[in-house]
């Protein structure tokens, strides 16, 4: 076996999306046969996009892909599979009521007597491959009844059975418990010994160190280098992964925080796949300050925001705004306490795209007295309000009657923000507020956030954008593994290296230091 032969080579890959965002810029990526190669980077670094192109789900704007020395055009997953590439996605592509064996042979079902499924053969094939690759599965069990770890093995078997020699695993341990992760690693090493090549997308330093041979680091759509795993330290990886090429300059006055507005105590939550996503979170946000929540995605941020806005309930713990309990309460109650949310999924929760700008912008206040004359709307007041908001928030549109779906991404977010910021909120929760939108809108929204904070609102800013969370926040906490790993009261002193270490779990502050964020007494 030629150990050093390059099996996959991606040269000069550039990917620019129609909205102008460059996800990959001149990326070079190559993998040797029979190695376990990690592709590392923060969210948004471009690693998922790169692998999507390797699996034929997307096409590069520029650059070429060479498999086994042969230049190829991977126009669809079918073509990629034909070249021996298999991908295990983060969200499983399995049919719940079908058995493991049925899922594995779907699309290539063995037949008997012409018309019927040869289920025995399917079971045999499954058992055969399962034993060959040491991926223990229960062939006859329904997928909806098996644990997550086994579901993943089924996905891997699906790829192997279709002739994959190169396996791409997209954040495979994101859904696994520690136990299941150990098992997975054993299996991956076994596969490697049999000559398979594995590309392992991840941002978890300890795991990478455990089983990979080499690693490639990406940041901001570019490659930062290829390294032998054994000869690079975790600190060095962290420094390359987490860092900013340009530091954002945000003008803001010093904060003068006063009373606590949001108090979170001991939130705990285990999701439906038995993974503990929140493991005892306690903190407080005060009037007049912007508290950032930093961390690589998947460490509990999503769940935390859901809990605070009544979209999910924790198993344990409490949260209150101005002393009033908000856990498990309906949204209208929470809003009445003065809480606003700029949601991450703006198209599902933030707007009704088939409705007009005006209709969107009054959705949280249309029952108020000033907009109603008895049973009817006070249209004059409503029009005045929407016009004012459109102008104050510089929403670029034809008129207030225009349907929101016609607007550009940045302007859609401005509509969301126009509504959420203008309700005179006591607490603003902003979740990825400037993701995927143009520079102008981004600057505008960030400035508004600062203005509101200095005027007395409490702001909880959850952002995967390092610049945003470090420069915009006055103080910040870092989430890792469902716990708070650090609390920094003054972000202006922070540097990227330190941030990286906490975000990737290399360091953790003492409970005392973290406890200061609760501002008790």
């Amino acid at each position, binding site marked *: 076996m030629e150990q050093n032969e390059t099996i996959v080579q991606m040269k000069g890959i550039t990917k620019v999306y129609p909205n102008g965002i460059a996800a990959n810029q001149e990326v070079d990526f190559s993998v040797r046969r029979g190695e376990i190669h990690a592709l590392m980077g923060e969210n948004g670094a471009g690693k998922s996009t790169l692998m999507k192109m390797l699996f034929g789900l997307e096409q590069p704007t520029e650059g070429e892909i060479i498999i086994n020395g042969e230049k190829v055009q991977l126009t669809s997953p079918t073509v990629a599979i034909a070249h021996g590439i298999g991908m295990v996605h983060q969200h499983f592509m399995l049919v719940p009521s079908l058995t493991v064996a049925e899922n594995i042979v779907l699309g290539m079902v063995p037949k008997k007597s012409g018309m019927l499924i040869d289920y025995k053969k399917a079971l045999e094939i499954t058992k055969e491959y399962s034993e060959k690759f040491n991926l223990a599965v229960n062939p006859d069990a329904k997928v909806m009844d098996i644990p997550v770890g086994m579901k993943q093995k089924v996905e891997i078997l699906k790829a192997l059975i279709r002739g994959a020699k190169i396996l791409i695993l997209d954040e495979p341990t994101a859904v696994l418990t520690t136990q299941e992760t150990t098992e997975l690693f054993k299996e991956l090493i076994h596969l490697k010994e049999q000559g398979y090549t594995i590309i392992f997308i991840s941002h978890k330093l300890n795991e990478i160190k455990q089983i990979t041979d080499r690693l490639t680091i990406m940041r901001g759509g570019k490659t930062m280098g290829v390294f032998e795993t054994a000869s690079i330290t975790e600190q060095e990886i962290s420094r390359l992964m987490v860092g900013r090429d340009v530091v954002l300059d945000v003008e803001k006055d010093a904060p003068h925080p006063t009373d606590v507005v949001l108090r979170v105590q001991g939130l705990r939550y285990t999701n439906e796949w038995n993974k503990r996503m929140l493991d005892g979170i306690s903190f407080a946000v005060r009037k007049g300050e912007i508290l950032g929540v930093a961390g690589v995605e998947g460490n509990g941020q999503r769940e935390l925001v859901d809990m605070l806005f009544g979209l999910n309930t924790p198993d344990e713990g409490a949260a209150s705004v101005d002393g009033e309990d908000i856990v498990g309460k309906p949204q*209208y109650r929470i809003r009445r306490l003065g809480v606003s949310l700029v949601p991450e999924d703006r198209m*599902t*929760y933030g707007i009704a795209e088939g*409705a007009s700008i005006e209709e969107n912008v009054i959705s*949280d206040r*249309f029952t108020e007295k000033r907009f109603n004359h008895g049973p*009817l*709307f006070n249209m004059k007041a409503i029009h005045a309000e929407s016009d004012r908001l459109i102008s104050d928030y510089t929403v670029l549109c034809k008129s207030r009657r225009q349907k929101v779906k016609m607007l550009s991404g*940045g302007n859609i977010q401005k509509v969301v923000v126009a509504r959420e910021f203008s309700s005179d909120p006591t607490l603003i929760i902003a979740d990825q507020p400037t993701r995927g939108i143009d520079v102008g809108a981004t600057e505008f929204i960030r400035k508004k956030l600062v203005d509101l904070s200095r005027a007395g609102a409490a702001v909880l800013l959850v952002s995967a954008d390092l610049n945003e969370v470090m420069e915009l926040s006055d103080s910040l906490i870092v989430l890792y593994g469902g716990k708070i790993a650090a609390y920094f009261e003054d972000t202006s002193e922070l540097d990227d290296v330190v941030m990286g270490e906490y975000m990737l779990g290399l360091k953790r502050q003492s409970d005392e230091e973290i406890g200061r964020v609760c501002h008790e007494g």
Partner: protein
Amino acid sequence: MKGKRMLMFELVRGAAAIALALAVGTIFIFLSSDEPLNALRYLLIGPLVSLKNGVASFNTQGLYTILAAMIPTIFTGLAVCVMFSSNQFNLAGEGIVMVGGFVAALCGIYVHMNTGWHAVFCVLVAAIVGGIIMLIPALLKVKLGASEMVTSLMLNYICMYVVLHFLNYNFADRSKGSTQTYAFDATAKIPSLVSGGSKLTWGFVVALVFVVIVGLFMYRTRWGYAIRMIGINQAFSKYSGMKVGGTIVLSQVIGGVLSGMGGGIEVLGRYSTFLWKELPGYGWTGITIAILAKNNPLLVPLAAFFIAYLNKGCQLMATYCDVPSEMIDIIQAAIFLFFAAEQFLSGYRQKIVVKNTRADLAKESAGLEGGAK
């Protein structure tokens, strides 16, 4: 500018759909009739134009009968507009119209008042009963997630049989040949609007009044707004603080009230006793009307007129030519299919329009940023 173009496009698309549906009908006419052109004449212009000795004249009585036919369908059309606006496929209008008519008739027979308020009272009772019955599929959907489509379809039959039971066993006038109730008091009848046998009553005026009321309700009140937003994006509405469950129930109860009212007004206006032996079919027509009106209450009279006109045309065809009146069902079905087809004639043209708009806005905003910097 572009917005107007979109509107024009939608109108053209709708007109094309209707034209295509009529074309389908025409094909069938040609296939089945010995005098297709004559039949077409009756269908297309017959309802309003009568020919006597080669002279065409406007048929006012014809107009009145069409308007009279619109009375129940405006109500059911409005009902469906409200219910479909909250994205609930509730089809129980059929059954509730029948119950409404029956209840109104009973009030007209057994409750005695000696003023014109009698009719108002009867219709009011019918409306309230209609609303209460609609609670069943509404609550089952909101509390238990049970399909409102199946429950409402079942409800139609339950309503029909219950009414027929009471009609036959408890309230039938045994002296009459066919099954019917006793006559209702004169004070309960809804008075005619015009002379002649067109059955155009003040119910028509009431229907138009309700068009305005429902239109105002849907577009100028907080409840109508909530109903529409929930229909467009339920998650968004919940997140914005709206009470989704209650509003969904409200939309269906209103549908019940309107359907019941329509049934009551029709029975008290057109007849002198209650004599329906099966579901009268206004509920299904209401759905067609709501589709044509795109759930906009203000367009309901237009759509109702169109359907009533076609219906009359089909009836004329049946009377004077050899084409069965059931042609109306074929045309209605075709209208349904083509009109509600989102992709019909859209193809890529719509996408281009959207792309243009987005590109324009991006250019403009980029220009703005560049200027500001």
